[in-house]
């Protein structure tokens, strides 16, 4: 079963556009905001509120677990 990471950091992260990794030049590699907003719009305009909420929670849980796995592999 997937569980969202319950850390304070993750609770406060917005659903979209929250993954920034510093590039080698110190600039942010933020994914295009319009893509994040397109994802949000697609979900809210084409799915029922229940399906949208579950899909968003699923992506959030996957991202949280991925970060945890990544940290475990690199530490």
């Amino acid at each position, binding site marked *: 079963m997937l*569980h969202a990471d319950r850390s304070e950091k993750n609770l406060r992260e917005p*659903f979209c556009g929250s993954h920034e990794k510093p590039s080698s030049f110190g600039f942010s590699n933020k994914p295009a905001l319009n893509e994040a907003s397109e994802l949000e719009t697609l979900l809210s305009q084409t799915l029922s509120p229940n399906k949208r909420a579950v899909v*968003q929670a699923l992506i959030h849980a996957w991202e949280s677990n*991925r970060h945890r796995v990544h940290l475990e592999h690199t530490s």
Partner: protein
Amino acid sequence: MSDDRVIRRLIELLQRRFSNEDFQSKEKLFELIEQVILAETDDFLELTRIAGLSPLESYGGQNLIGVSFDRKDLARADFSNSLLIRASLIEAELSSANFSNADLTHAFLARAKLTSANLVGANLTSVDLSGADLTNASLNNAILKMVDLSDAHCRCASIRFSDLTGAALHRVRLEEANLSSSNFRRANLSRANLQGANLFGADFTGATLYRVNFHDASLDGATVEGAHFSDNPGVSREMRRELIRRGAVFED
């Protein structure tokens, strides 16, 4: 847009978003998303099960605007910091659930069971909580402007430093509740039962308090300027004189 096209477009966007990732589980994620979107049901708990999520632990901090889980059993679930604007939770079992700092503006919680629930710091503006059971619940620092708590059971609830401006509190049961330092300006508490409640520092300016039971509830330290009293059990003659001196209006 058909479901297939939605799924294709969604996976395209997620592929781009996770382009640097090389995890096998990415495929599993896409498969689960597809299963949720194509599911015949719109039942929140069934969709949660299909997604492999925990109904009790997966929704804290999430966007749950407009979701519906009427009559569902979500006791002890974590909805802290979630957006539940216009969500429908009518007659849901939510005992000991955590809604701290959640935004429930305009949500529907009529007859929901919220005993010992945590609603500290929640925004409950214009929420329908009529007939809900909030026995022992914590609503400290909550925003309850224009909330409908008619016929709700709030015995032993803690509602301190909360804002109930303009709230509908007809026949609400607030025996032994702690209402200290809360704002009841222009609220209607007709026939409410405040027996043994702590009202220290509460503000009843302009409130309607007809037939409110004040037995064992001290109004010392409460603001009553322009509050309307009538037929109140538990208000002695001495207390009445003192309240009138402080600006209360007695209509009996």
